């Protein structure tokens, strides 16, 4: 991830462009440094497109408007060979073939094949109305446009089709019968490369770049990393994590009011007196101070503690053990890797089930033997563990090694995410509160395994199913990386100065040092001692999503990625 080989494409839904202040879009451009900006179709949104063109330095394209007119497909240059800065491995030019819609594709099937013949320069075909349609009464999912694609795309090879009509993260290879478009099969796991099904088959790798429903705006924009091999990765971002709106307490309305006063960037904000901010409608002196603090955190990359509370476990004689688990899916059937980093000895211990995945108990037993036997008096530390790690460990230990259940319950369990983000003891730099983003913003140098939780889960599932071995070292390095990143964040927060005056107002709900000691009494005491403990999860039961519940939801979905 550190080397910038290839190119980045920013995929923006028109609504995200239209609704956001220009300064936010500019910040988006500065932060993500796209090589091209794709304003998603299939609807024609000329105004949003115009806005994107003026906001970004990188060239923008909007498929519904990209008609070449001469019967050929528009070729969008993403990166040309001379512009590539690393000068190393990858200097090939990269282009997209862009079609306004399926109808246009249908009209000019030969244009497609001639454009695609130019591979590998043409990395993908962009067609925004390719989408899947679920027909539950027939228990089938259709690929809209399958017939057109089967007619236009080459056989015997895999063609990548990018679409804004599928959410970012959608990735499946549809094998279509040439001519008819009948579905021959669909491959879902692209790990280890994708193969065409047969010589007479049109294989389409459909990858989404659109917003994900059900997440509000938290996954509304996507970045695609491209290399000569195609799309290497797709990441999602929250549009409100950029510009002034990235600052806590500034929503679109406040941002508008600030813009009226000429304040459009976080630097501007920091130059605006707190008193002026406090006088904004709906603001308060505390809120204004918080805006300043958070803006400074984001600008400097330095974390800020909002209270004078100790970090969880900070007052213990030995530091907590940093824990991370890997599973085989979001609804796990095995916790196949448990990694623990011990800051006291700067050592790492991994418990991995490499040989008998049918028995989820062995790895748990080994872990418990070690934890309870070797480190009987240590606390554990996680990042969002109550949303994932602790939750599943508790449930799996109770089921598979019940003799350790009671002991496990009494192990002190701390969570840095809960303390910092949910209980609002600190402001963190980083665009999101994902561990990777926070650690990265705090200068952590990761191992660059190129994996994420979902990939590692899929790889393990494949191992269980087919016996095909994982690249164990790589997957173990991934887990270790997260444990060490967690400790890095912990140290940076520990070294950040404690807040003074504001402590009393901000920490009243969570309690102060007693929190840590009572948490050490085991799970039940700890939930009863700290009402905030169960709060985020509880609020998920409500039908009214609050800020917190939204976080909690996100938590559980990204659990594999160590939120």
């Amino acid at each position, binding site marked *: 991830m550190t080397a910038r080989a290839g190119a980045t494409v920013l995929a923006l839904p028109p609504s995200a462009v239209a609704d956001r202040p220009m300064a936010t879009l500019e910040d988006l451009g500065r932060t993500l440094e796209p090589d091209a900006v794709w304003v998603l179709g299939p609807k024609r949104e000329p105004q949003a497109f115009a806005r994107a063109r003026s906001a970004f330095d990188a060239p923008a394209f909007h498929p519904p408007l990209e008609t070449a007119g001469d019967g050929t497909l528009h070729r969008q240059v993403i990166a040309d060979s001379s512009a590539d800065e690393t000068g190393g491995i990858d200097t090939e030019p990269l282009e997209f073939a862009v079609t306004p819609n399926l109808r246009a594709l249908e009209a000019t099937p030969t244009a497609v094949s001639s454009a695609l013949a130019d591979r590998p320069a043409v990395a993908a075909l962009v067609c925004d109305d390719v989408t899947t349609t679920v027909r539950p*009464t027939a228990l089938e999912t259709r690929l809209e446009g399958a017939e057109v694609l089967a007619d236009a795309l080459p056989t015997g090879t895999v063609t990548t089709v990018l679409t804004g009509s599928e959410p970012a993260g959608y990735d499946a290879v549809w094998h279509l019968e040439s001519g008819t478009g009948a579905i021959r099969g669909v491959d879902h796991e692209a790990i280890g490369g994708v193969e065409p099904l047969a010589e007479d088959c049109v294989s389409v790798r459909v990858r989404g770049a659109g917003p994900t429903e059900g997440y509000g705006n938290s996954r509304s924009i996507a970045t695609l990393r491209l290399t000569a091999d195609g799309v290497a990765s797709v990441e999602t971002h929250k549009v409100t994590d950029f510009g002034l709106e990235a600052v806590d307490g500034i929503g679109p309305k406040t941002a508008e009011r600030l813009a009226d006063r000429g304040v459009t960037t976080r630097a501007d904000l920091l130059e605006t007196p707190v008193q002026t901010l406090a006088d904004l409608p709906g603001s308060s002196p505390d809120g204004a101070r918080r805006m300043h603090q958070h803006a400074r955190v984001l600008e400097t990359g330095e974390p800020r503690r909002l209270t004078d509370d100790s970090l969880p476990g900070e007052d213990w004689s030995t530091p907590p053990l940093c824990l991370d688990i890997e599973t085989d899916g979001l*609804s796990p059937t095995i916790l196949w890797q448990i990694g623990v980093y011990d800051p006291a000895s700067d050592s790492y211990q991994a418990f991995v089930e490499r040989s008998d995945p049918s028995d989820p108990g062995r790895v748990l037993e080994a872990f418990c033997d070690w934890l309870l036997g070797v480190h009987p008096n240590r606390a554990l530390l996680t990042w969002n563990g109550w949303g994932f790690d602790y939750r599943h460990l508790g449930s799996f230990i109770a089921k598979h090694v019940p003799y350790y259940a009671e002991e496990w319950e009494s192990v002190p369990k701390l969570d840095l995410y809960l303390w910092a983000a949910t209980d609002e003891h600190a402001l963190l730099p980083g665009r999101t509160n994902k561990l990777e983003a926070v650690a990265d913003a705090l200068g952590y140098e990761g191992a660059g395994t190129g994996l994420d939780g979902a990939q590692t889960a899929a790889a393990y*599932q494949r191992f269980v199913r087919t016996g095909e071995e994982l690249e164990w070292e790589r997957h173990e390095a991934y887990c270790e990386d997260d444990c060490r990143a967690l400790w890095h964040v912990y140290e940076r927060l520990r070294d950040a100065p404690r807040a003074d005056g504001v402590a009393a107002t901000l920490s009243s709900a969570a309690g102060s040092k007693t929190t840590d000691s009572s948490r050490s009494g085991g799970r039940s005491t700890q939930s009863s001692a700290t009402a905030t403990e169960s709060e985020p999860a509880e609020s998920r039961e409500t039908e009214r999503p609050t800020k917190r519940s939204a976080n909690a939801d996100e938590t559980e979905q990204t659990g594999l990625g160590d939120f």
Partner: protein
Amino acid sequence: MSDQRSKPQADVPITGDELVETFPGYRDEDDVTVLERPGRSAETVPCAEVLDPELAGPLENDLYTHQAAALEALADDENVCVATSTSSGKTRIYALQIARHYLEARARDAASTAYLLYPTKALSRDQERSLNDLYDDLGLDITVRVYDGDTERGENRRRIREEADVIITNFAGVNTYLHDHDRWARFLSACDLLVIDESHTYTGVHGMHVAWIVRRLKRVLDYYGADPQFVLTSATIGNPGAHSSALIDEPVTVVDEDGSPTGPRDLVLWNPPPKDREDPSHDERDEWRDDEDGDGATSEKAPADDVALERVPATVEAPRILSHLTYQDAQTLLFTPSRKLAELSVKRASKHRHDNRRYYANPDRGSAIEPYHAGHSRTNRHGTEHQLKTGVLDGVASTNALELGIDIGEMDATVQLGYPGQRQSFWQQIGRAGRGSRRALSVLVAEHRTLDQYVVNDPDYLLENDVEDAVVDIDNDAVFAQHLRCAADELAVDESDVGAFADRDRLERAVEMWRRAGQLRGHLETGVSYVGPPRPQRSVSLYATTGEEYEVRLADGVDERSDPEMEPLAKERVLRDFHEGAVRLHQGQQYEVTAVEHGAPRPSVTLRPTDVDYYTRTRTDVTVLDAVSEESREVGEFTLHFGRGRVLVYHGTYDKVAVHGGKKREQGIPTDNPPLSMETQLCWLEVPQNVEDALIEKYRDVSVPDLEDGLADTAHLGYAGGLHAAEHATIGVAPLELMVDKRDLGGLATLTIDSHLDRAVGREGGTNTNTDADADAEARNESTFGAPGSDDAPRNIAAAEATVREIAQGLERTPASGWFIYDGIEGGLGFARAIYENYEAVAERARDLIADCDCGNVGGCPACVMDEQCGNDNRPLHREAAVDVLDQLLGDADEGALAAHRPDEEHGGDRRPPLFYA
């Protein structure tokens, strides 16, 4: 009143005959039937024969035989469904089984929990109290707690999960809580009993969701090593065993030999008097006479069979009887079909007293009458329940909210405003009066509509026939697929779910469908996880509404104290009852709707208090548009299609109706409502031209006097009546053949099927036999009213009907006639599909139903072709023509049966009117 309450063994203060004698004004004896139903004495078994001494000891009363039988079956580890009468002590059965489990567990130093699922929150709280009281009496330390949407969040909920022995909730709650099952680990691991109370209420759409929630719950229970027993309690239904087994997917022992006592009952079937015979001293008379005169063209249920005999509406007569009974010291519960009528009836009961001061010397006697329905706040409802129980109230006008087992004590009498539509519901409601061995009084006031008139004229229908079957469908893939996503979110779906959750083929297909849509990941061998948007449970709508709720707000500048504090409203209700200009009565206060916001993100209804002497009533119309055939097949010469299309429901105009008398002040005022548009599944049958020609000829002399639209004498009417009747009967019998609930189906008989189809689809040869995905997509883009989901449907029914007629004019070929059957739920439910696949069997049933009915009416009766929900008030209907059509379809007609009616070549020139009937 209080005297009555303190003498529980006393009979009702007024008998059926006395009611007839004392009621002011003349009532023809032919209009009132008093049936005396004998009582039944209790059959009991000593507790000690069934229960251990520790439980039997403190119990004062013996067990009824059905309680004993159920407890014995439970002791043998069987699942039990108890289907006995209201207040026969069903709760006690599972309460005692919980106590048994508790004692057994205590003996081995373990825990035992029970999960109790009730249909309503009100019932939950009611039962929480009585169960806790029972365990206090038994001296058992069993904690019973309610845990539902009203339960205080945070610490309180955690304590209930971690400490309660018995948790009471509802299925909407279980659906949600399963997501966090690990937090329920203690409770679920120890679960020995699962109770589904009032299980007969789980039918249709709701029933199928419940069946899947039960299956999801069972997976999770199994994960925690629990294998609980089931107890289902049900009102008397036709198929308690089959229905219970379908819900829980396990064999069930049925206990339905009722051992509880019943007092004798006077059952009065009361047909309101004809209008012109009404006592002229009533000042309402003129108003309601005007009401019914000359406006038969409205969508209101108009008198169907005998125009000469117009009767006082039950909505006027029933409150009078309520008023009369409470005056006679009988505490009375009036059941009304709507919240509106519950409110209105209280006013009318009072008016009756004051209009008849000569008779009611002391008009304030027994006049404490309140409305009761789910629109009231919980506190408010609870107050009313309490006041009923303690005798403070003399009467209540309630919706079916009081039909279920809320404890309101023993009533003297019930009055039903109209027949509730189902025998099961009828018996459940009248069971509210006369608990124990007291003589009770129940009055059914017939509404002036065909179904009610049939019932009062033929009491045997109520007394002798079986009650209806409760229908629950688990074969519906759309609903199954929704719950599969939830299941995968709760625990990975894997090989162990094959067979247990669904058969392999179905499971694999559904998993693959969601995988292709990017919502599931993984394989059955290793476990399938849910990876879609958070909390798939939230997208499950248990009542199959659109899931869109409207907040109720007060208009600006209105005093906060007049806030009606109403619960959010479902979209369907807003369109029907809360359009702009609507006047709604809520807890005695009138409100006018001043604004409706349909758009996202927060739809709302704005009200302000008002004081006017009218209320409003919407008119409803239905039509089908843009149907696209996806599959078709031949049945003899007939062509049967399955496909998708749009069903439009319009509450397009409303009337202002006088509060007193019901006269319409103003008619046909536009609601400005958007149409309620459903993309759904349909099947339809095309009648071949030669059959149509012959039948039009055969029935060309049929006329239906007074039919709206001035089409009373058109040559096609008899045939159209046959199609209409066949459509009703087909829908009506569908549940006999298939696991569907007819309330979720709708139909439309039409002389021009083609004008309801999508015009863009080519129709060579009149059929479209192969599914062509591309043609479908194309068709949708160029459909009559734009793409599905777009908001460009015609704004009112006139526009829609005009469109249908316009299309009819422009058709290139002679259109086919026939009828549609559609799923009345957005997206469809697979019912129309199932009927498509089983059409012959269903048609055979329909044919026999119509032919064998001995009602003797050309237009049929509620037992054959009349449908209570008919939007055209069951007109025109023609049984004989329907049988002819179905005989032709099934190939049962004699050779040449139609030959006599073949029109001459030169004849047959009658212009085809574009008629269609829902």
